[in-house]
């Protein structure tokens, strides 16, 4: 089963409070520019610094060159690519990420290969922030343990 984040989970006060992503450095991979602008905006409003890539090539270059605290990955990239290569780089570096996709059914196998949570598009900003914050908290707890 895919993990779905619904509005109800946005009641999580920790996650949706302003500054929930304070001082984090995030990678956003999203090929739809308008969605990218919006997601980038609200992640920054939540306190993050965001690098944005619209293509797989750019995403890979950014992921290899920088050390991110977390990432939001659109699953389908352009007509032929998907986020798997960049997810593998992030996974190898222990960077937590969430998947943000409009067609989880079509990308079922790709998505299922990762344990990362999936936020279905169209999504509320709070859903994305809540899911990502939870992953960041989990990663921090793992690192401290």
């Amino acid at each position, binding site marked *: 089963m895919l993990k779905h984040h619904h509005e*109800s989970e946005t009641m999580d006060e920790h996650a949706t409070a302003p500054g929930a992503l304070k001082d984090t450095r995030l990678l956003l991979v999203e090929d739809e520019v*308008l*969605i990218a602008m919006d997601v980038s905006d609200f992640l920054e409003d939540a306190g993050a610094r965001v690098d944005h890539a619209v293509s797989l090539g750019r995403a890979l270059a950014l992921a290899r060159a920088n050390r991110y605290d977390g990432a939001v990955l659109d699953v389908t990239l352009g007509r032929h690519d998907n986020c798997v290569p960049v997810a593998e780089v992030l996974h190898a570096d222990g960077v937590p990420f969430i998947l943000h996709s409009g067609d989880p059914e079509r990308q079922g196998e790709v998505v299922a290969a990762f344990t990362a949570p999936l936020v279905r598009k*169209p*999504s*509320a900003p709070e859903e994305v922030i809540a899911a990502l914050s939870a992953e960041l908290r989990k990663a921090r707890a793992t690192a401290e343990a």
Partner: protein
Amino acid sequence: MTEQKLHNQAGRTVEHSGDNAGTAFPGASGVLFEQAMAQTRMAVTLSDPHDPDHPLVFVNRAFLELTGYDEDEILGRNCRFLQGPGTDPEAVARLGRAVRDNDVVVVELLNYRKNGAAFWNAVHIGPIYHEDGTLRYIFGSQWDVTDVHAARSEERHARLMEREISHRMKNMFAVISSIVNMLGKTSTEPALGRDINERIRALGRAHEATLQLSFQQGRVDPTQMFRELVGPYTSDPRALDLDGGAVQLDSNSVSILALTLHELATNAVKHGALSSKRGRVALSWRMCRADGQDQPLLRLTWTERGGPPLHGDPERLGAGSEITTRMLRAAGGVIRRRWDTAGLTAEIELPLQC
């Protein structure tokens, strides 16, 4: 030699050599074989496994009709003359391996008639043995499955298109959401963007849930759509009780139901049953006919229980509820809300296209 006799076109009375005498089925005489082969619509061939090129030694009438060749054009030749530019070499190789290993195999491959027309051929081949166990013929049957192939590829295409449309639709909703978010932030009423977006997402979920359903083919089950619409407002799946049968839907009704249920659900989260852990919502529906009317009517009942006790009607309806009331009225329907102490009951009637 039997082979020589079998060369004669099926349907002609052929003298039989008696090779079949003593087989388990005493009726399997040569005459019977010839007549059966002449009658069947299944194209049948026999080829000689002892000749290195495996030439055809018998073909029946159905085979000649299927391929468009005359008997004397093909007897003595290997049946590869049916292959052409679109024939998958891998499928041919599978046939070759089966012949080599005396296996039975069914392979679908693109073949060509004498006039050049391509057809999908389901070829079945297998060994036929002498009584002493030595190989006698390679049996082949051919069936034109072009129609089956077309149907399958149409179905695949339809599925692909459906996924593509679903993806594009969700992407479009997501892009609209993003624009509304960005404009909303710069406007004097930032909450407006959020209100609009919640409704866009409800519409998206409802249409997505009904994408696989064909509204042209009669009644469909709306349960999944209702679950997608109301489910996100509660983390407890038991909080939602859906009960109703198939209904006649169309795209417009889906939008109206999406906005109506969104309104009821968000209000239940703010003031009603879904604001409490033990709260429950029951949604039931059925098709009926209004008195003296031909047009079918969808009647839904939304019942909230287990929420905070209510103290009569609210002083005024929210803007969203007002819009819902007007929308249903404009559609020729109605929504009646009743605030009992135990919780809200809303009855919705929506005329449906038939």
